[in-house]
Each structure stands twice: as structure tokens, then as C-alpha cells.
């Protein structure tokens, strides 16, 4: 079981920074808050015992993807704030989100998970969870893993070709 203080502390951290992503007028503040949210989520992963995934979350999300976001935003140097939609549109959007939240939490409440408070330990004396994850990744999910590798290769080539489009900041406007 996870100590309540730990869970509520991390939850407060995550939700405050997630709200900052939503409400910060400056996109760079949004991006940095998102990075903090991801570090908080990684903390919860640690608490849940998935140490490897937690470290990967910090390395990949907070360390690489969000740095990319921040760098792109700094290159853009946006001066103007986000436009705000009309009142009834905003009301519609918020109510849709509220309905979805209600549906999900209703489903969670009605399902029988409420009583489950013990974490099943994955690791036995000889096999650590990380090793178990690796074995699963390279046996049962080998095809998915290889396909993912090809996807990444295709995307790397695609991204390079898209971002080499002529014009823009260096061309005559």
C-alpha cells in the first residue's frame, strides 16, 4: 500500500501544474508546467514500483520531448496571447469535458475496484520487474517492438524532410 501523504502530495503537485498548462497565457510557462507534471507522474510511477518506466518517463518526456517543445517556442517568440472563443462556445466545451469527467468517475465508482488497496508485488527473489519487462518486450512483444523501430525511422526521415521546407525566417517575405 502507498502512504496517503505521498499520494496526495504528488496528486496536488500534478494537478496544480496541469492546471497551469491549461491556464498559463505564456506558452513557455505551459511547457515548463507540463514538464513538472511529467516529473510528478514519474514520482507516482516510482511509488507504484515501476522504477524503470519512471526513469524512462523522466528521460524521454521531461528530458527530451519537453525540451524540444520549449526550444521550438523560444524560436517562435510569440508575442500575442491566445484568442478567447465566444461565451457559449466555451460553455459548451467545458460542459462536454465535465460530462466526460462525470462519466469516467461514475464508471470507476460503479466498478468493483474500490476495495483493492494492496499492490501485488511483481518481483520475486530472482527476477526483478525490469528484467521481466525486458523479457516480455523481446519475446511476446518482439514484433510490436520492431514495428515501432520502423515507425521511428520513418518518422525521423519524415520530420527531417518536413522541416527542411524552404522559406520562412530566412527567405524574403
Amino acid at each position, binding site marked *: 500500500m502507498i502512504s496517503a501523504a505521498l499520494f496526495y502530495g504528488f496528486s496536488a503537485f500534478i494537478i496544480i501544474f*496541469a492546471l497551469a*498548462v491549461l491556464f498559463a497565457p505564456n*506558452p513557455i510557462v505551459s511547457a515548463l508546467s507540463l514538464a513538472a507534471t511529467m516529473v510528478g507522474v514519474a514520482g507516482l*510511477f516510482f511509488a*507504484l514500483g*515501476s522504477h524503470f518506466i519512471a526513469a524512462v518517463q523522466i528521460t524521454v518526456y521531461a528530458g527530451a520531448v519537453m525540451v*524540444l517543445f520549449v526550444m521550438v517556442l523560444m524560436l517562435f517568440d510569440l508575442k500575442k496571447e491566445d484568442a478567447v472563443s465566444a461565451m457559449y462556445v466555451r460553455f459548451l466545451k*467545458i460542459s462536454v469535458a465535465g460530462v466526460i469527467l462525470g462519466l469516467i468517475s461514475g464508471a470507476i465508482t460503479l466498478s468493483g475496484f474500490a476495495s483493492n488497496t494492496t499492490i*501485488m508485488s511483481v518481483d520475486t527473489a530472482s527476477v526483478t520487474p525490469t528484467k521481466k519487462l525486458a523479457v516480455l518486450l523481446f519475446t511476446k512483444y518482439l514484433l510490436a517492438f520492431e514495428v515501432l523501430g520502423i515507425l*521511428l525511422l520513418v518518422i525521423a526521415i519524415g520530420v527531417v524532410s518536413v522541416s527542411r521546407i524552404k522559406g520562412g525566417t530566412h527567405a524574403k517575405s
Partner: protein
Amino acid sequence: MPSLESISQIGLNHFLYLSSVLFVIGLLTVLMRKNLIVILMGIELMLNAVNLSFIAFSSYAGDVHGQVIVFFVMTVAAAEAGVGLAIAVAIFKKFKEVEISFFQKLKG
């Protein structure tokens, strides 16, 4: 009214509630913000919420398969962010614009 025990005893459903709140915040970010890059961030937030629920399920069920899925989701999310940012940079270079409603004026 939830009992005191259900507040102090952290179980799977606590993580699921947190995950759903995080998901809805991400959804609202996608819906409410106009900046293309902030919208991409909202998508990342939603993916993180889903990852959290996967890891919670995996831990409480004692099953590593959830972690494998999270691993895949992270990889795809990183790739998706790369493509999204590349398109945003390409369009910004050409039109100096990142507002999402501008994108509907683009033609072949």
C-alpha cells in the same frame, strides 16, 4: 459521503480518479487553447493520464504487461510530438502563424 478509510487507504480507484482528472484537464487544453503547440501539449497530458492508469492497473494486478504498453505509448507519443512540432515549424516559417483556426485556410 466517502468514509475516512477510503480517503486514507490509497487504492487503485484513487489513481483512476487522478488519471481521469488529468485526462479531462488535457482535453480542456486541447479544446480551449488556440495555440497549436499548446494543443500538442494537451495531447501529451492526456497520454500521460492514460499511462498513469495503465501503471496503476499493472501494479495493483501484479502484471508487467501494462508497463510494456506504457513503454510503447511513450515511444509513439515522442514520435507524434516530433511530427507535430515539425509541421508547426514548417507552417510558422511560411506564414508566421501558430493559431489553430488559421490552419483551415490552408489549401493544397
